[in-house]
């Protein structure tokens, strides 16, 4: 697949979409980083970058490393996508610029100011519930329950059918992976979830004032067409919920494992926002994304041909010792700016402000109301081709 490389690209016999990898990716990340600035992964016939500098460079050169051929392994130039492509995630400029501007405005810092109090009140209510329970599942009862209590309402979704949201998002993120069992099973079971999502994206099903209605309102302003609006709403349904579930889950898991950091947060709850940000760096809930080369390109002295898939290891970049001091330490006062947990460049997570708001108000509510937080049962991992997180996190808390 590589057209006469100048020097041999180091090959690494790692399957980054295997259960063994998901169970403990960190030694594998180190091998990938140390093998070279770009590596060949023969299992799935692709190239990978795992060092911070190269991941950041690929993310910030969308002309050379495009998204319109899919940000999963499947190359849209060769294969029919499993669903109609996203108008923002799987698009390049100039088409991307227009749709991106719409979502950026719908989820802007000014809009976050408006929803902030409501999100904070819901976080406090949720924490009151788990304090009353004493022992609970950090995933189901908090990491999932809290975003489910705020995000679908903020979007303006109907109450019925919301149980499809997390399975749909799981499907989307599994589908970025290679044609393994996780991807195949997810697509095989996708029909009811896809039908629900398609229906909820329509204008008449979205409550006035919500993020969804705001997207449709841009049709009236002439910024997008009536056929584009539902697909942009779909982006929020795909990427706006499960990611924050994994992000909050990561933060809880950190707090439960690192009591020193938990005590620092309790002593100063204003650190909540950075504690969440550091959890996103430390665990990297979104582990990987692909790009496709639009021309022959050189990475770290190696030549890669046109039309090649490049896998970016965001999680490995976020722990690259070339970029981070003591990368394997969770430090809630770390200077986190520049981590690639939300990506970087023109495709950087458009919902990052929603994620930070949810993470911040949740951790701040915990810091004020909970004295101790401990793991009280077997921790179970949830497997997904793109997302890293837990299926179950039994926790016991005591009230402050």
């Amino acid at each position, binding site marked *: 697949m590589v057209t006469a490389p100048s020097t041999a690209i180091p090959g690494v016999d790692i399957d980054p979409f295997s259960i063994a990898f998901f169970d403990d990716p960190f030694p594998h990340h180190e091998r990938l980083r140390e093998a070279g600035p770009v590596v060949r992964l023969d299992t799935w016939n692709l190239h990978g970058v795992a060092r911070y500098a190269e991941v950041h460079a690929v993310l910030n050169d969308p002309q050379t490393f495009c998204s319109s051929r899919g940000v999963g392994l499947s190359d849209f130039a060769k294969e029919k996508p499993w669903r109609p492509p996203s108008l923002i995630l799987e698009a390049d400029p100039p088409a991307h610029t227009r749709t991106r*501007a719409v979502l950026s405005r719908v989820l802007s*810092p000014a809009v976050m100011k408006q929803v902030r109090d409501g999100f904070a009140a819901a976080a406090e209510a949720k924490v009151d519930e788990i304090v009353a329970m004493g022992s609970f599942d950090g995933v189901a009862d908090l990491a999932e329950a809290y975003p489910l209590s705020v995000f679908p309402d903020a979007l303006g979704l109907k109450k019925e059918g919301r149980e499809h949201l997390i399975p749909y998002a799981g499907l989307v993120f599994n589908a970025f992976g290679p044609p393994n069992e996780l991807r195949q099973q997810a697509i095989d079971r996708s029909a009811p979830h896809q039908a629900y999502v398609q229906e909820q994206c329509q204008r008449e099903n979205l409550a006035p004032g919500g993020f969804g209605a705001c997207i449709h309102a841009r049709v009236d302003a002439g910024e997008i067409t009536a056929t584009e609006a539902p697909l942009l709403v779909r982006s929020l349904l795909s990427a706006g919920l499960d990611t924050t579930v994994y992000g909050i889950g990561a933060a809880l898991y950190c707090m439960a494992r690192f009591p020193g950091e938990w005590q620092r947060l309790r002593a100063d709850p204003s650190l909540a926002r950075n504690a969440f940000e550091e959890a996103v760096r430390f665990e990297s809930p979104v582990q990987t994304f692909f790009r496709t080369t639009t021309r022959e390109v050189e990475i770290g002295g190696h030549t890669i041909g046109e039309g090649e898939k490049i896998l970016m290891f965001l999680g490995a970049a976020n722990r690259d010792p070339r970029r981070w001091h003591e990368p394997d330490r969770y430090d809630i006062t770390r200077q*986190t*700016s*520049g981590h690639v947990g939300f990506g970087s460049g023109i495709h950087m997570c458009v919902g990052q402000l929603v994620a930070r708001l949810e993470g911040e108000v949740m951790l701040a509510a915990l810091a004020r109301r909970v004295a101790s937080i401990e793991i009280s049962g077997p921790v179970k991992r949830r497997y997904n081709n793109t997302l890293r997180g837990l299926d179950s996190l039994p926790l016991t808390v005591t009230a402050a």
Partner: protein
Amino acid sequence: MPTITFVHPDHRSEPIDAAVGDSIMQVAIAHGVTEIVAECGGNAMCATCHVYVDGDWLGRLPAMTADEDALLDGAAAERRPTSRLSCQIKITPELDGLVVMLPDRQV
């Protein structure tokens, strides 16, 4: 190297030698100016690298884009006519002596 002076909320002045080509945000982060948060890492998406530009300098900076203008409406501290996002201002030799005031909060 151009010198950029950051004025902290307590009026303390901190002159820093800045590399041409870096953004003011990058200079602040590299030198531990903690009032600049820069959550999005310089992608003009978060409004947490807000600064107030010293009046004399404002007109000598490149004009702001519509995106920066919209983001500043969401800045945590009060928006003023002198407000800019420091990630959007690249250091040039002409900016030697620039003074920016830091707001008391970014989130």
